[in-house]
Protein backbone atom coordinates (compact mmCIF):
# COMPACT_ATOMS: atom_id res chain seq x y z
CA UNK A 1 0.00 0.00 0.00
CA UNK A 2 1.06 3.56 -0.79
CA UNK A 3 -0.05 6.54 1.26
CA UNK A 4 -1.18 9.59 -0.72
CA UNK A 5 -1.49 13.01 0.95
CA UNK A 6 -3.07 16.17 -0.44
CA UNK A 7 -1.42 19.34 0.75
CA UNK A 8 -2.49 22.93 1.29
CA UNK A 9 -5.82 23.97 -0.18
CA UNK A 10 -6.81 20.61 -1.72
CA UNK A 11 -8.59 19.76 1.49
CA UNK A 12 -8.86 16.03 1.02
CA UNK A 13 -8.07 13.32 3.55
CA UNK A 14 -5.02 11.16 2.93
CA UNK A 15 -5.71 7.80 1.29
CA UNK A 16 -4.04 4.38 1.00
CA UNK A 17 -3.92 2.85 -2.48
CA UNK A 18 -2.29 0.00 -4.39
CA UNK A 19 -0.18 1.28 -7.30
CA UNK A 20 3.11 -0.01 -8.74
CA UNK A 21 4.17 3.32 -10.24
CA UNK A 22 3.07 6.94 -10.59
CA UNK A 23 1.33 6.24 -13.88
CA UNK A 24 -0.95 3.75 -12.20
CA UNK A 25 -1.52 6.15 -9.31
CA UNK A 26 -2.47 8.90 -11.78
CA UNK A 27 -5.17 6.64 -13.26
CA UNK A 28 -6.62 6.05 -9.82
CA UNK A 29 -6.61 9.73 -8.83
CA UNK A 30 -8.12 10.80 -12.16
CA UNK A 31 -11.26 8.90 -11.25
CA UNK A 32 -11.79 11.16 -8.25
CA UNK A 33 -14.07 14.10 -9.13
CA UNK A 34 -12.65 16.26 -6.37
CA UNK A 35 -9.08 15.80 -7.55
CA UNK A 36 -9.43 16.09 -11.30
CA UNK A 37 -8.97 19.87 -11.41
CA UNK A 38 -5.95 19.75 -9.14
CA UNK A 39 -3.90 17.16 -11.02
CA UNK A 40 -2.73 19.50 -13.76
CA UNK A 41 -1.56 22.06 -11.19
CA UNK A 42 0.12 19.82 -8.66
CA UNK A 43 3.75 18.80 -8.28
CA UNK A 44 4.45 15.38 -6.79
CA UNK A 45 6.87 14.25 -4.12
CA UNK A 46 7.66 10.63 -3.29
CA UNK A 47 9.11 10.16 0.18
CA UNK A 48 9.68 13.92 0.34
CA UNK A 49 11.59 14.24 -2.92
CA UNK A 50 10.02 16.04 -5.88
CA UNK A 51 9.78 13.73 -8.89
CA UNK A 52 9.26 14.38 -12.59
CA UNK A 53 8.99 10.88 -14.06
CA UNK A 54 5.67 9.08 -14.44
CA UNK A 55 7.56 5.77 -14.45
CA UNK A 56 8.77 6.34 -10.90
CA UNK A 57 8.20 3.01 -9.12
CA UNK A 58 6.21 2.89 -5.92
CA UNK A 59 6.83 0.44 -3.10
CA UNK A 60 4.90 -0.69 -0.10
CA UNK A 61 5.01 2.05 2.55
CA UNK A 62 5.97 4.84 0.14
CA UNK A 63 4.50 8.24 0.80
CA UNK A 64 3.28 10.35 -2.12
CA UNK A 65 2.25 13.98 -1.65
CA UNK A 66 0.50 16.30 -4.09
CA UNK A 67 1.62 19.92 -3.89
CA UNK A 68 -0.61 22.62 -5.40
CA UNK A 69 0.76 26.07 -6.44
CA UNK A 70 2.70 27.77 -3.64
CA UNK A 71 3.00 31.27 -2.25
CA UNK A 72 5.17 31.76 0.81
CA UNK A 73 6.16 34.98 2.54
Amino acid at each position, binding site marked *: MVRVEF*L*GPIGKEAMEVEAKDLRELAQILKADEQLRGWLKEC*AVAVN*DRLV*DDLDTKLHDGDRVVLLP*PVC*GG
Partner: protein
Amino acid sequence: MLEIYPGELEVEAIFSRWYAWGAKRNFGAWVTFVGTVRAEGGIEALSFDIYEPLLRSWFDGWQQRAQEVGAVVRMAHSRGNVPVHTSSYMAAVFSPRRRVALELLEAFVEDFKANAPIWKYDVRNGERIYAKDRSQPLAGSGLLDL
Protein backbone atom coordinates in the same frame (compact mmCIF):
# COMPACT_ATOMS: atom_id res chain seq x y z
CA MET B 1 18.55 27.86 11.13
CA LEU B 2 14.97 27.37 9.89
CA GLU B 3 12.34 28.42 12.42
CA ILE B 4 8.60 27.88 12.10
CA TYR B 5 6.21 29.60 14.49
CA PRO B 6 2.45 29.47 15.04
CA GLY B 7 0.95 32.89 14.18
CA GLU B 8 2.82 36.14 13.62
CA LEU B 9 6.57 36.37 14.11
CA GLU B 10 8.03 38.16 17.11
CA VAL B 11 10.24 40.13 14.77
CA GLU B 12 12.23 42.04 17.38
CA ALA B 13 13.01 38.98 19.50
CA ILE B 14 14.08 36.96 16.46
CA PHE B 15 16.16 39.83 15.16
CA SER B 16 17.90 40.23 18.53
CA ARG B 17 18.77 36.56 18.71
CA TRP B 18 20.08 36.50 15.17
CA TYR B 19 22.12 39.64 15.74
CA ALA B 20 23.77 38.24 18.88
CA TRP B 21 24.48 34.99 17.06
CA GLY B 22 26.12 36.70 14.08
CA ALA B 23 28.13 39.36 15.94
CA LYS B 24 29.82 36.72 18.09
CA ARG B 25 30.83 34.79 14.97
CA ASN B 26 32.66 37.71 13.40
CA PHE B 27 30.37 38.16 10.40
CA GLY B 28 30.91 41.66 9.03
CA ALA B 29 27.77 41.92 6.91
CA TRP B 30 24.25 40.94 7.80
CA VAL B 31 21.19 41.50 5.66
CA THR B 32 17.61 40.72 6.58
CA PHE B 33 14.32 40.66 4.77
CA VAL B 34 11.05 41.07 6.70
CA GLY B 35 7.70 40.48 5.02
CA THR B 36 4.73 42.15 6.70
CA VAL B 37 1.04 41.53 5.94
CA ARG B 38 -0.34 44.60 4.20
CA ALA B 39 -3.85 45.87 4.84
CA GLU B 40 -5.33 45.48 1.35
CA GLY B 41 -8.38 43.96 -0.28
CA GLY B 42 -10.23 44.04 3.01
CA ILE B 43 -8.36 41.11 4.54
CA GLU B 44 -7.98 40.80 8.29
CA ALA B 45 -5.05 38.37 8.10
CA LEU B 46 -3.12 36.00 5.89
CA SER B 47 -2.89 32.34 6.81
CA PHE B 48 -0.26 29.76 5.89
CA ASP B 49 0.13 26.01 5.54
CA ILE B 50 3.66 24.60 5.41
CA TYR B 51 4.88 21.22 4.30
CA GLU B 52 7.82 21.02 6.62
CA PRO B 53 9.84 18.02 5.34
CA LEU B 54 10.22 19.52 1.87
CA LEU B 55 10.75 23.04 3.22
CA ARG B 56 13.63 21.73 5.32
CA SER B 57 15.33 19.95 2.42
CA TRP B 58 14.89 23.04 0.21
CA PHE B 59 16.40 25.16 2.98
CA ASP B 60 19.29 22.75 3.56
CA GLY B 61 20.20 23.07 -0.12
CA TRP B 62 20.48 26.83 0.32
CA GLN B 63 22.52 26.46 3.49
CA GLN B 64 25.03 24.42 1.52
CA ARG B 65 25.13 26.99 -1.27
CA ALA B 66 25.72 29.73 1.33
CA GLN B 67 28.45 27.75 3.05
CA GLU B 68 30.42 27.57 -0.20
CA VAL B 69 30.84 31.36 -0.07
CA GLY B 70 31.44 31.52 3.67
CA ALA B 71 27.91 32.69 4.44
CA VAL B 72 24.99 31.45 6.55
CA VAL B 73 21.26 31.78 5.81
CA ARG B 74 18.55 31.92 8.44
CA MET B 75 14.81 32.02 8.01
CA ALA B 76 11.66 32.22 10.09
CA HIS B 77 8.12 31.67 8.82
CA SER B 78 4.65 31.61 10.32
CA ARG B 79 2.14 28.82 10.20
CA GLY B 80 -1.58 29.63 10.64
CA ASN B 81 -3.04 33.13 10.87
CA VAL B 82 -0.96 36.33 10.70
CA PRO B 83 -2.92 39.59 11.21
CA VAL B 84 -2.38 42.66 9.01
CA HIS B 85 0.59 44.86 10.00
CA THR B 86 2.37 41.90 11.59
CA SER B 87 5.04 39.75 9.95
CA SER B 88 4.99 36.23 8.54
CA TYR B 89 8.44 35.90 7.01
CA MET B 90 12.03 36.77 7.89
CA ALA B 91 15.14 35.77 5.99
CA ALA B 92 18.75 36.68 6.71
CA VAL B 93 22.20 36.20 5.29
CA PHE B 94 25.36 36.55 7.40
CA SER B 95 28.63 36.90 5.54
CA PRO B 96 32.15 38.22 5.96
CA ARG B 97 31.52 40.39 2.87
CA ARG B 98 28.70 42.74 2.05
CA ARG B 99 28.29 42.00 -1.64
CA VAL B 100 27.94 38.26 -1.05
CA ALA B 101 25.33 38.94 1.61
CA LEU B 102 23.19 41.20 -0.56
CA GLU B 103 23.31 39.01 -3.65
CA LEU B 104 22.64 35.83 -1.74
CA LEU B 105 19.65 37.31 0.08
CA GLU B 106 18.14 38.46 -3.20
CA ALA B 107 18.58 35.02 -4.81
CA PHE B 108 17.33 33.25 -1.69
CA VAL B 109 14.15 35.30 -1.40
CA GLU B 110 13.35 34.93 -5.11
CA ASP B 111 13.81 31.18 -4.97
CA PHE B 112 11.79 31.02 -1.78
CA LYS B 113 8.86 32.63 -3.59
CA ALA B 114 9.03 30.07 -6.40
CA ASN B 115 9.90 26.89 -4.54
CA ALA B 116 9.10 26.89 -0.83
CA PRO B 117 6.19 24.48 -0.16
CA ILE B 118 3.97 27.00 1.59
CA TRP B 119 0.33 27.84 0.84
CA LYS B 120 -1.19 31.23 1.44
CA TYR B 121 -4.79 32.12 2.25
CA ASP B 122 -6.57 35.43 2.64
CA VAL B 123 -8.64 35.61 5.80
CA ARG B 124 -11.92 37.50 5.47
CA ASN B 125 -14.68 37.30 8.07
CA GLY B 126 -12.80 34.45 9.67
CA GLU B 127 -12.82 32.44 6.45
CA ARG B 128 -9.65 31.12 4.76
CA ILE B 129 -9.59 31.67 0.98
CA TYR B 130 -6.72 30.12 -1.01
CA ALA B 131 -4.65 32.89 -2.68
CA LYS B 132 -4.67 31.03 -5.97
CA ASP B 133 -4.06 34.02 -8.25
CA ARG B 134 -0.84 34.84 -6.37
CA SER B 135 0.42 31.24 -6.25
CA GLN B 136 2.95 29.60 -8.56
CA PRO B 137 3.03 25.94 -9.62
CA LEU B 138 6.14 24.10 -8.46
CA ALA B 139 8.56 22.66 -11.04
CA GLY B 140 7.15 19.47 -12.55
CA SER B 141 3.53 20.35 -11.85
CA GLY B 142 0.95 18.49 -13.91
CA LEU B 143 2.90 15.21 -13.90
CA LEU B 144 -0.16 13.20 -12.90
CA ASP B 145 -2.47 14.92 -15.41
CA LEU B 146 -2.66 12.10 -17.95
